[in-house]
Each structure stands twice: as C-alpha cells, then as structure tokens.
C-alpha cells in the first residue's frame, strides 16, 4: 500500500485537506534557508502547533543545529546500497507520526535506492497528500528550467534538480536573500563550510560575479511566482493548475516580439530586442511574415538559417507566419502569443504612392490589441538609439 494512502487511512479527517507547502528559496548554500525554516518551525511550535523535523541537514553548522533543539526529529532510516549505508528521511515513520507541520530540508535531494521515491520532492508530495503542512528549502539552481542558465553563468552544473511545477505547487515561496559580500563574509568566517573547503569554494563557485548573477535569477524567479499567485487570487475559479495555465501569458508580465526579415540588418533589431527582453526578464519571439509562395532558397535560406541560429543562441523563438499582409500576420501572432511589446525596424523613406499609406507602426498599433507597445529600432547610420 502506498505510504500516503496508509496515512490517509489512519487519519481520515486530515486527508480531507491537502497540506500547505512553504518553500524557502535562496541563491546558494549558506544564505540561511535551513536556519530560517527552523526559526519559523520554532515559532509555529511556540504557537501551539505540533511540529516535527522530517529531515534536516545541519551541514556541520553549529548555529543551525542549535536552532533545531527543542523540535522533535523523526529518526532517519538507514538504507544499504552497494555495501554503503546511507541515511535518508523515514517517510513511512513521518507519515505514521503525522505532525501538523513537518520540516523537510533540501527539496531537490535524490534519495538512495530502496526509498519509496527517487526524489525528496516526491516524498513531500506524499506528506502533503496526507494533510501535513511542510516547510522545505531549495536553491535556485536546482530548478530544472534555470539549471542550464545557472550552469552557463557560473560554470557549475548541479545534478539534483526539481521540475519547476514543484515550486508552482508551493502555497508560499520565501526568498532568503543575502548580498554576495555578506555571503562571502559568512563563508570566510567558516559559517557555511568547514575550514578546508573554504578556499576552494571562494575560488570556484562563490565569486561575487557568480553570486550576483544567481541573486538576480533568484529575485526574478520569486517575482514571477508572486505575480502568478496574484493573478490566481484575482480569479478564484478552477484548479490552481488550470488557472496558472490560463493566466500564463499575463503571469510572465511582458512578452516581446520582434518583426524580422531574412536580411542581415534584422540582426541588429534582434540584438536590441534581446537586450530589452533581458532587462524585462522575459521571453523573446522573432517573427518573419513570409509572403505566400516565396521559396526559402539561396540568400533567403541563408538568412533564415542565420536568424534561426541566432534565436537558438539567445534562447529566443523564430516564428514564420505566411501572409500577404504584414500587419494582419503580425497582429494574429501578437494575439495568439499574448505579446505586450512589439519591436520593428525603421523603414526606408516611402517613395511614390507609398507616401499616401499610413506608416507601419501606426497600422500595427491599430491592428493589435490595446496595451501593446510598439517600438521602432533605428537603422544603423540614421541615428543611435539608446
């Protein structure tokens, strides 16, 4: 029988509601996630709640261990794998103990073979399903979608990851923030790692540059979570997943679209659009409205390939929409993808009867939904935009 189901059978009242999940997230080890989790656990216990530590990793930090005193700890269990004895959280014992609130450190941890689940977040799901509230901790680089980005920023890839949906399931996400300088100070003072590990850590992962980048990623992540939750509160219908999916275009705040053509000059537009997307912390789409029947061959093919390649380098998406009307084609994509920001290159001065036509930005403004901003990127040589 499934462990969570056993707990459900033992306590029918509690399983009527799912437990609440609160996640303490930080940019790196040592910012104080476990410490804060224990502090809040103590406050809950003092408030009269039944609190137990399901699993805690003190990392040989005396201050952290001291804070766990007075909180009941469910003993770990030992699992033997290839003649090695490993300690893991005892999920069945925790479910049997059934506290009101369980403190479970390191959400992204991979369990030893022989445990109920491969990953700890799966254990946490069982605990929540049994109606037990959970406080847990995670570092931002453990989020699957950010793993590549963080690895590129820091040169260090973590193997233990959790799907982003796990963080999405949290009822509350608390960012434990610390300036890079303060964290490095804590590291130097031996409050994060023992003496022999301090110098290697300072020389590799714990550089100011790495920590600044990670801090930014963590702040953005939590900001997105807050935005998503705000939208959920506004529309209390349907399941949480359905609401998040429905509101996804709005939850990300801004979404940029750059109108490109298979020409080298479009690359500058893409660069400008990408920098804006970076500043806004949002995704970028590139759109070429292709005239019907136009063959993608020769120089056109080469430029489309170059744009696709650039999009891949930047993490953007190149869309090709077939239409004989640029404005209609672009407006359709704007509506479909929830675009809020449209960037176009500066057109050449109109000649002949084209002078009678309304300029492209105005036509785009009229054709797209209200609230979509249109920005014109100047041609090289005409003027420098900021």
């Amino acid at each position, binding site marked *: 029988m499934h462990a969570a189901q056993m707990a459900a059978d033992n306590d029918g009242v509690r399983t009527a509601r799912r437990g609440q999940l609160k996640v303490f997230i930080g940019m790196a080890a040592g910012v104080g996630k476990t410490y804060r989790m224990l502090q809040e656990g103590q406050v809950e216990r003092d408030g009269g709640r039944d609190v137990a530590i399901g699993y805690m990793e003190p990392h040989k930090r005396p201050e952290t261990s001291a804070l766990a005193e007075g909180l009941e700890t469910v003993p770990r269990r030992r699992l033997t794998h290839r003649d090695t004895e490993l300690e893991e959280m005892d999920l069945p014992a925790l479910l049997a103990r059934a506290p009101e609130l369980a403190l479970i450190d390191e959400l992204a941890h991979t369990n030893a073979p022989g445990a109920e689940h491969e990953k700890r977040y799966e254990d946490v799901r069982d605990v929540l399903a049994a109606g037990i509230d959970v406080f847990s901790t995670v570092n931002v680089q453990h989020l699957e979608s950010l793993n590549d*980005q963080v690895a*590129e920023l820091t*040169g260090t890839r973590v193997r233990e990851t959790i799907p982003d949906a796990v963080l999405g399931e949290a009822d509350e996400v608390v960012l434990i923030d610390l300036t890079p300088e303060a964290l490095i100070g804590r590291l130097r003072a031996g409050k994060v790692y023992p003496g022999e590990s301090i110098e290697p850590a300072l020389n590799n992962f714990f550089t100011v540059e790495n920590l600044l980048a990670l801090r930014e990623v963590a702040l953005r992540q939590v900001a997105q979570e807050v935005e998503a939750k705000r939208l959920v509160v506004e529309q209390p219908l349907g399941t949480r997943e359905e609401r998040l999916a429905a509101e996804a275009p709005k939850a990300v705040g801004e979404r940029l679209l750059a109108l490109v053509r298979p020409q080298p000059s479009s690359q500058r537009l893409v660069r400008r659009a990408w920098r804006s997307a970076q500043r806004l912390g949002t995704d970028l789409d590139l759109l070429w409205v292709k005239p019907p029947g136009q063959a993608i061959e020769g*120089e056109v093919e080469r430029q489309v390939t170059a744009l696709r390649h650039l999009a891949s380098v*930047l993490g953007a998406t190149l869309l090709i929409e077939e239409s004989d009307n*640029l404005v209609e084609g672009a407006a359709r994509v704007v509506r479909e993808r929830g675009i809020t920001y449209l960037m176009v290159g500066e057109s050449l001065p109109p000649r002949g*009867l084209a002078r*009678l036509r309304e300029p492209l930005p105005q036509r785009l403004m009229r054709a797209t939904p209200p609230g979509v901003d249109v920005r014109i990127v100047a041609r*090289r040589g005409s003027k420098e935009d900021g």
Partner: protein
Amino acid sequence: MSVERVLIIVALGLGLAGGYLIARSHKGGLRPEAAETVHRILLPFTGTAISRRALDAALRLAKAEDATLMPAYLASVSKQLPLDCAIPAEAAKAMPMLEAIEQRAAGQGVPVDSRIERGRSYRHALERLLDHESFDRVVVPATGEAGAGFSGDDLIWLLAKAPAEVLILRPGPEDRRFVTAKNGSRAA
C-alpha cells in the same frame, strides 16, 4: 468627340490607374526577398576586444571588393551544457562587440552580416562555422599573447581547413589598438 468627353475619359483612365497602384501598394508591401549573391569576408574573433588592425584590414578588403563583412563571435560552451543550448552570458559579451564592429563598418559603408557560433572550444566553434557558412576570405589576427585569440596551431589548422583565402595578420609592434564594446576602441 468633344473635348469634355476626351477629358472625362482621360480622367477616368488616370483614376483607374491610380486606384490600381494604390491598391497594390496597400496590399501589405510584402514582396519576395531578392535573392542575391554577395562576397563575404569572415572575421572570427573571441573575447571582448578585437585587434583594430585586423578589423581595419578586413574593412578595407570588404570595401575594395564590394563584399559583406561577416564578424563571427566564437563562444566556447562548457562540456556540462548541451552544445546547442542558449548561451545568454556569452551572447551578452558578443552583442556589444558586434555592435561596435557594425558601427565602425557603417562609418566606412561596408555591409555587415554577423554571427555567433558555439563550440566546445574556439577552434571547434570555428570549424562549425566553416562547415555551414560560405565566404571568400578569412581574416584572422595572430596573437603573441598566450591564451588570447588564435594560437599558431589554430592558424595552421585554419589554413588546412578553410575553403577560402586566409589572410593572417602577424602581430606587429604597432598592433596595440583594439576595438572594444565599451569605448569603441582603445590602446593596449
């Protein structure tokens, strides 16, 4: 036929012709992109500065041959990452460099078609670029500094591998000026 009738017929004709032209121009102005063959000069570089001498040489050649300059930023992707993953941190370094090169090229009226290429090493990135792009010349600055730009081995490899003319600029005592992202150019 009276003069009035002639004038009416002429006016109608002009109106129809004008209407047709306006309708054509209102159709969205989307015409197939013109296919053209251009000469290209590849200028591969790494890092956040490029030898001004090499850039000027490439621009002079491009101008003389009516060619397009193809500056290519070579990015080294860690083995921990998939080779085709997005590389925003590298892109953030490449962007201002490509802007600075484009700006300098625009001043001389040379068209630019830039690239960012990924590889496990700079040489691997260059190899990938050679595999899927075509060009008529390659301009590379040799460097006397260890760990910067292309080494002697890289250049020998390039001479054997590149399907185009390779122009290697040997480092000279006067080669102390660089084009960088921040200030356009600087002296070493």
